[in-house]
């Protein structure tokens, strides 16, 4: 597609993304108002229940004495200027808490996604080349297994095996506390801490991508243009690489976009299991403390992450598939 069409496509997707984010804010607003108790007490949860001054501050901030639509505008203005509220428990703004934790989550989800996508596609392709043979069955069974296993439980089992029994890998945190490593040593230390959480989060999605890639490869292999390639005398290896694989990847990309939300959601569980200092762990801590300002902040942040991720997959799709039209 031409540069103009691509720009129009991206502009259209960006507007759509903006609407989704706007929708999330309105949704949160409605949610807080539907919950039992007034919005201030919902947001304060237990963290501020005993502090009348904080409650008064919250009521002021929400403009609770004004009409509902003005409250919505105030809320919109606050969130869109990244004023996500204040955590009474931690005595810090929610935005700064999230900002501090976000890099760890991005590292974890990024690593898990890369592992799942590359591994899943490789396994799916391998299985599709050996339909009905033992290797295919084995890959199918593995995929089915990880698809059916609760992610936090996989984490616990990996801890049990690799940390408790074999003592190969650390099971806790993002780096060795007190070691004060720098440079390469620090990076290696983080990488070592990353392996188990990334594996845990990635295996579930690896299973999904493997199943999808296998089905997609088989479907494309049946299509007319593959027969055309064969009739041209194209060698089998090149048929798989050039004709089948490229077309088979399209649904995988689409699906990865749709599943971005699940990936981010899964990181809450994984960060909880491995005490990984990301926003998922932050959400868990907020849950324990009933610190709902933080919880809603994390929800907003994950929604933005998903929207951005979707934009990236849309772009990728547009680059790969010449047929993309403004839908």
């Amino acid at each position: 597609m031409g540069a103009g069409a691509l720009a129009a496509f991206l502009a259209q997707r960006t507007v759509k993304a903006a609407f989704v984010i706007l929708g999330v804010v309105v949704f949160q607003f409605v949610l807080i108002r539907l919950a039992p108790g007034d919005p201030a007490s919902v947001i304060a949860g237990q963290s501020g229940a005993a502090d009348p001054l904080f409650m008064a501050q919250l009521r002021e901030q929400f403009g609770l004495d004004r009409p509902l639509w003005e409250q919505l505008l105030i809320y919109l203005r606050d969130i869109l200027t990244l004023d996500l509220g204040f955590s009474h428990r931690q005595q810090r703004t929610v935005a700064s808490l999230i900002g501090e934790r976000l890099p760890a989550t991005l590292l974890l989800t990024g690593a898990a996604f890369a592992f799942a996508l590359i591994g899943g596609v490789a396994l799916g392709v391998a299985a599709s080349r050996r339909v009905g043979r033992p290797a295919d069955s084995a890959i199918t069974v593995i995929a089915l297994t990880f698809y059916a296993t609760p992610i936090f439980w996989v984490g616990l089992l990996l801890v049990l095996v690799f940390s408790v029994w074999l003592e190969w890998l650390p099971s806790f945190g993002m780096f060795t506390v007190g070691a004060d490593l720098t440079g390469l040593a620090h990076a290696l230390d983080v990488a070592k801490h990353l392996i188990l959480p990334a594996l845990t989060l990635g295996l579930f999605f690896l299973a999904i991508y493997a199943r999808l890639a296998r089905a997609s490869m088989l479907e494309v292999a049946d299509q007319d243009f593959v027969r055309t390639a064969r009739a041209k005398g194209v060698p089998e290896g090149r048929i798989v690489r050039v004709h089948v694989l490229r077309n088979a990847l399209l649904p995988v990309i689409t699906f990865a976009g749709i599943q971005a939300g699940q990936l981010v959601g899964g990181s809450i569980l994984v960060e909880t299991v491995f005490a990984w200092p990301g926003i998922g762990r932050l959400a868990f801590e907020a849950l324990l403390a009933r610190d709902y300002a933080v919880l809603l902040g994390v929800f907003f942040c994950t929604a933005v992450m998903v929207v951005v991720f979707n934009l990236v997959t849309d772009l990728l799709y547009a680059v790969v598939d010449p047929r993309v039209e403004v839908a």
Partner: protein
Amino acid sequence: MAEFWRRFRRNLGAVIGLAILALIGLTAILAPVLFPFSPWEMRGIPFMPPGEAGFLLGSDSLGRDVAAGIAHGTYVSLLVGGVSTAAALAIGITLGAVAGYAAGRVDDAIMRFTEFFQTIPSFVLAVVLVAIFTPSISSIVIAIAIVSWPPVTRVVRAEFLSLRSREFVQAAEVLGRSRIAIILTEILPNALSPIIVLSSLMVATAILLESALSFLGLGDPNLMSWGFMIGSGRSVIRLAWWMSVFPGIAIFLTVLALNLVGEGLNDALNPRLARRRGALPA
């Protein structure tokens, strides 16, 4: 029906899945008979390994029977999975049918709404919903239903959209049948197979979601559940692995069985997709 069963049986995995599922259902029914006491009751010494002191699957940090907890938790998992799926199907089928049949602007509006719910991270949303509306079995069911209906809407809409333009539906239109009659007798029966397959997978996903919520401490505080058991065994995993491992196996088996049955249903209901060979080329 006989034909359906014959095709279903050809898939060995599906038959195994069905057997596991029957066993799990039986456990849920028989739990009060097998373990005629509350799963919260302390029955002996804490941290007993499996097989010792009368604990088939060991005891937990408060001396509660892990096996009893798993048996009683079966009921909770199946209940949450079933009810939330039914609710999600009700929302999803209604919206999808309206969108697919009406097409045009109505369709656009409904699909934007659906996409919105599909984009926002579902698990985080479920966590927020349950936390804000205080954890209970009903808030959990509602939260799971709210995050699981979008795929149903998409599938039903796609089916309706394609069936609507099918000639037999147009024939019914030309015969002068009412819209309701066309939807109920011409379109819906033909859209049923993907819905059935999808719903078995949705029950599995709902069970996984419930266990994850309970794991984070968002389960119904009055009901024993598998996720809660894993969550409470997490911090003592070095000491008592069985507290976390056995409930996890229960979840795994249930979800696996549902997935296997789903695949079997898919093979049986869409025979042409299941095996694409045997047809004579023209």
